[in-house]
């Protein structure tokens, strides 16, 4: 097995299909694995039963921990990672802002696609939230609501996908309001334009919202949030806070 290059550029031959299987960021040509994007090369170790061969991938995310896997713990003081063009895929978690609430569905625009690695280890999510805090605060700000939606992928939350229980009694207005930030999971790549998102899990739902009065609210139950200033509660499908 030839040694792997640390960094690959598109078109660079990484290894043979006989010793590796091809992961994201690579493609196969005549039984060899080639890189298809530029970035650090990572060989995920083989998992018995599911994946007999180690999987080769080229990472889109450039973070120091990918380069020094042995001292991953030292990289906890994660600086903002440059994030590149992740397309929503089925089962990827996203943060989205609600742009319209209709009787049978809510329309949201996807702000950011969260990394798979990040929802695997919950300890990482905290730092992950730091990373995207700036996106969220600016997105939750009512002044920033116009304009950039055309550049974001649109998604739908259908009424039946809002929560797992009492599906028939869902009233969309009591679940989401325009401007809310929602954590959701992609369930379908959908039709021409929209993706489909579900929030029917405890950890999914509204993560940030402003009250009628315009104040940031905090969650008090799985279906209510409260304005710290006025003390008024508003119904929401709330994501379990961490």
């Amino acid at each position, binding site marked *: 097995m030839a040694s792997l290059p640390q960094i690959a550029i598109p078109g660079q031959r990484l290894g043979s299909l006989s010793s590796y299987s*091809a*992961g*994201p960021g690579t*493609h*196969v040509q005549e039984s060899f694995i080639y890189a298809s994007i530029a970035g650090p090369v990572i060989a995920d170790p083989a998992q018995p039963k599911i994946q007999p061969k180690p999987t080769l991938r080229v990472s889109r995310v450039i973070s120091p921990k990918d380069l020094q896997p042995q001292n991953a713990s030292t990289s906890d003081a994660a600086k903002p990672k440059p994030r590149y063009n992740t397309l929503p895929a089925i089962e990827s978690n996203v943060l989205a802002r609600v742009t319209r609430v209709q009787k049978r569905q809510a329309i949201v625009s996807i702000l950011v696609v969260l990394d798979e690695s990040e929802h695997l280890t919950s300890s990482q999510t905290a730092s992950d939230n730091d990373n995207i805090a700036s996106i969220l605060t600016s997105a939750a700000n009512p002044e920033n609501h116009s304009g950039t939606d055309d550049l974001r992928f649109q998604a739908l939350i259908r009424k039946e996908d809002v929560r797992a229980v009492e599906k028939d009694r869902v009233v969309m207005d009591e679940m989401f309001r325009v401007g809310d930030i929602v954590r959701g999971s992609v369930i379908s790549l959908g039709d021409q334009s929209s993706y489909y998102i579900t929030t029917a899990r405890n950890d999914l739902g509204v993560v940030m919202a402003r009250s009628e009065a315009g104040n940031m609210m905090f969650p008090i139950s799985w279906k209510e949030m409260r304005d710290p200033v006025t003390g008024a509660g508003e119904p929401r499908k709330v994501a379990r806070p961490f």
Partner: protein
Amino acid sequence: MSNQRQASSASQVPHLSPAELSYLYTSLSLPKNPIRPDGRSPTQFRPLSAETTILPGTNGSARIGFADGTQAIVGVKAEVEKTVLAADTLDSRSLAQHGDALNREGEEGSAAVSGQGEWVQMSIEIPGYRDDDALPIFLGEMMRESLVGSVENKEEMAGGLKARLVINKRWHWRLYIDVLLLSQPLSYPLPLLSLTTHLALLSTKLPKLKSTGEEDPFFDDDWAAAEYLYPRSKPSSGPFHPVRPPVTILVVSVGENIIFDPNREEISVADAVLAISITRSHDSDALKLLSIRSIDPPSRLTQSGIPNSENVNMIGSTPAENPSQEEVSGVWRPRRGGVKRSVVARMIKTVLGKGGVGEEVLEGLEGVEVH
């Protein structure tokens, strides 16, 4: 919608199912003897009907129709125009002439001798496309570049078409070639347009010049005395190598096979599409290559098929998270990548070679009666 996508690219986006594409690709790539959907041999063109000089108001015209009903009409008009040097050139010699009278005799303004490519204007009208869409522009540039580029060194046609348009130092002909497709194209319209343009130019006549030298030009008003733009008379002796307008031929490669005049279905599974312009060589029987352009194969935009093993609607299938990248027989995969040099070379050879397709096409066109 689909029109919008068409407009963004020079090739048409096909609407075929993955199963159809796969069937076609396999049929066309059968080693040695591809099966074309309409039973033609790989080098066979669709039959067409042609006539020339159909428009009395033009200097030359032609019409070609395919059996499927698509027709193209080309009209050629010529106008006399005063020669002006382009504003962006500082012709050193014209400057020199001011100061240096000695140079005058020896060097003429070269533009006046060789003609300018701008004197040939070409416009293509295709129903369903705006005139600034990619397809008409791409086709127009493609046909014009081989037309003005065909430099010949033969006596009657020295300097090619451009030079033929020179009347004298101060006057020249301007040629307008207007190409009209009568219906929305059912296949890539290049061969149709090119063949029609060829015939129209063959039939183009310019009035006989009566003036001589540098005087203002005047012409014989007897149309019967007019001369062909591309001379048709045979020399009394010696081999006959007529000067002819170029022809652009569409060639595709599918697998190992090379296929001519593809219809829409065939082009949508092609690995590579080339437009090759050729003309007769002036000093031998061989053909001359004028230009090659690759055309974006529409197969790159197609939808891939799903192998049964990954189809969620199949019993016992396992929908793969990361779709496998290996080829499965019977499953269409959009073409990706380019074309090998050896394939390009073979495509050119099939066109140019002795007794090749190019020769036969030109021969066929020569057989069309020109009044």
